[in-house]
């Protein structure tokens, strides 16, 4: 158990800068999920913390000690890899015991700790098997066990569920969360899956092109995305982003098509005519007989709800999520509740207010 702090951590591979200065502080026992599209630098960040790469600049402080230039072995960090990386020639027991053997623990200690961890993960009957005799979920569990048995200061998870099928992924997700809570080990979890990000993290770090763009609780990220990138990345289907201009002395936005919506939460800075990007989530758009006309282009029934993708009069697409079945007809009328609007600057993409 430990705290982790990153101070302006940068990484370049040759001339290519991958991380442009990351500052971060993890509380003891916290689970932080790093989420972002592939190539955003999230895996590199994890590998820097693990010690598999050396940062170009910056400090990585684990439990008060700068570990940025230490060997992975000296950091007391355990990592769960995407493809599990189990030693194929060792039994489950030996896989889990390997790190303990290297540290010179006695036979009895090793047997006791591996036994206890295996018990906790339901791996008891599998201890003599080789990895190739295990199913995907079991291998995943062994990979977790190998990390847990070391009782490290920090857990790192590198997309550990992406090789599992959808159903197993849900089960293992819940299990990881339960285990992490129970053990109280500070953890970093990298994923590109927003459902994993939302459900697992105490806090979320959204990364984009090597820069952390928002660090907050999952609900905060969902409710108050800091930039248009975060707004579009978190939530499915993605948030609708529409161009608009500031009007009425900063009190409302003009979305064109005769739609002028007053801000529910007060005035925005700037002169009238300032270019804005307005975000609204598909599930927040309401059916309204007096609203804007939308030609239905595509209907995606999800069972409990239905996603409608419609065309506005200028041909732009808009997605709308309605509970239950799709309404009848070729077109619907919708309106945007003022309280549900997200207002961003059109040029910088930053949230306004």
């Amino acid at each position, binding site marked *: 158990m430990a705290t982790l702090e990153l101070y302006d951590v940068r990484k370049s591979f040759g001339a290519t800068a991958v991380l442009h200065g990351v500052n971060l502080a993890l509380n003891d026992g916290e689970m932080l999920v790093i989420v972002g599209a592939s190539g955003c630098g999230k895996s590199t960040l994890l590998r820097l913390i693990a010690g598999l790469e050396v940062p170009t600049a910056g400090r990585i402080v684990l439990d008060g000690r700068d570990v940025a230039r230490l060997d*992975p072995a000296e950091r007391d960090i355990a990592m769960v890899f995407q493809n599990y990386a*189990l030693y194929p020639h060792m039994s489950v027991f030996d896989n889990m015991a390997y790190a303990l053997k290297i540290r010179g623990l006695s036979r009895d200690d090793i047997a006791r700790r591996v036994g206890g961890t295996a018990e906790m993960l339901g791996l008891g009957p599998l201890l003599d098997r080789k990895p190739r005799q295990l199913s995907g979920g079991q291998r995943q569990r062994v990979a977790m066990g190998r990390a847990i048995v070391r009782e490290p200061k920090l857990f790192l998870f590198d997309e550990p569920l992406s090789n599992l099928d959808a159903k197993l992924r849900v089960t293992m997700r819940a299990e990881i969360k339960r285990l992490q809570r129970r053990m109280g080990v500070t953890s970093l979890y990298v994923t590109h899956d927003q459902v994993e990000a939302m459900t697992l993290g105490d806090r979320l770090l959204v990364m984009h092109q090597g820069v952390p763009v928002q660090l907050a609780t999952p609900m905060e990220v969902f409710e108050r995305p800091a930039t248009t990138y975060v707004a579009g990345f978190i939530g499915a289907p993605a948030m609708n982003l529409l161009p608009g201009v500031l009007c009425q002395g900063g009190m409302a936005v003009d979305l064109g098509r005769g739609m002028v919506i007053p801000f529910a939460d007060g005035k925005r800075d700037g002169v009238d005519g300032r270019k804005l990007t307005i975000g609204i989530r598909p599930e927040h758009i309401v059916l309204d007989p007096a609203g804007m006309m939308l030609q239905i282009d595509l209907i995606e029934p999800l069972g409990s709800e239905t996603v409608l993708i419609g065309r506005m009069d200028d041909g732009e697409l808009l997605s709308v999520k309605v509970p239950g079945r799709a309404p009848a007809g070729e077109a619907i009328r919708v309106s945007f509740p003022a309280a549900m609007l997200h207002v961003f600057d059109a040029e910088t993409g930053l949230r306004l207010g």
Partner: protein
Amino acid sequence: MKPHTDWLAHSILCTGVALFVLPLWLLLAGATQDGGAIARGELSFVPDLRNLGIFWSVLTDRAPGGSPVWRMMLVSAALALAIAFGKIVISFLSAYAVSFFRFPFRMLCFWTIFITLMLPVEVRIVPTYAVMANFGLINSFTGLAMPLIASATATLLFRQVFLMIPDELVEAARMDGAGPLRFLRDILLPLSAANMAALFVIVFVYGWNQYLWPLLVATDPKLDTIVIGIVKMIGGDTVTDWNRVMAAAVLALLPPVLVVVLMQKWFVKGLTEGDK
């Protein structure tokens, strides 16, 4: 498959087997017959079972101009084993270096090793002899074995095996606290054991069959390998005892055959299986 193609395939296979086995059978049968008869060209296909004792006598008696066959076989075995183990150890370590470590001129080292593929002992025999002579290793066992040990082929084979090992496995070992030597011993060695066994079989046979280099570098009869010994039994001043030559050849065949048969399972596994 249709029955008649099956039949055809089998007859082709049988012809192949016959072509392969016939000389061996002649060797075996000839060993038990009268040397004079063979010299006159009267070689029978039927072995004379009363003369099976020839093998024992060839094995233990001093051959003309040298040591008894058992001694030559011992030299051959020692040479083949030294070459096999030496090659495996050296190639394994050099492949480990070029595959897993970043050091200056790494690729230069790799290509230098690679280029020696084009320079087998036969090509560089004169300079190699000169080097061995300067080291004072002519007529020594070390001089016999050493030039045959360095091997680009084996290094390339191991490098290929190592390239198949996923990066994450290396990283997992690093996270677990395994240093380079521990990784070599605990992870790399067991994972390449099958390939090593396959290599051992190939190299043992290669070492056993060496002729040109031993002929050149070791003139001391004490260092005669069995291959050299058989050649020495032919011709020379005395009349060739063809039956004894054939018996010696049969005996010379046994160790490589034994190695191949005993290690067959591993051999096939090492060449075909990739369970990494």
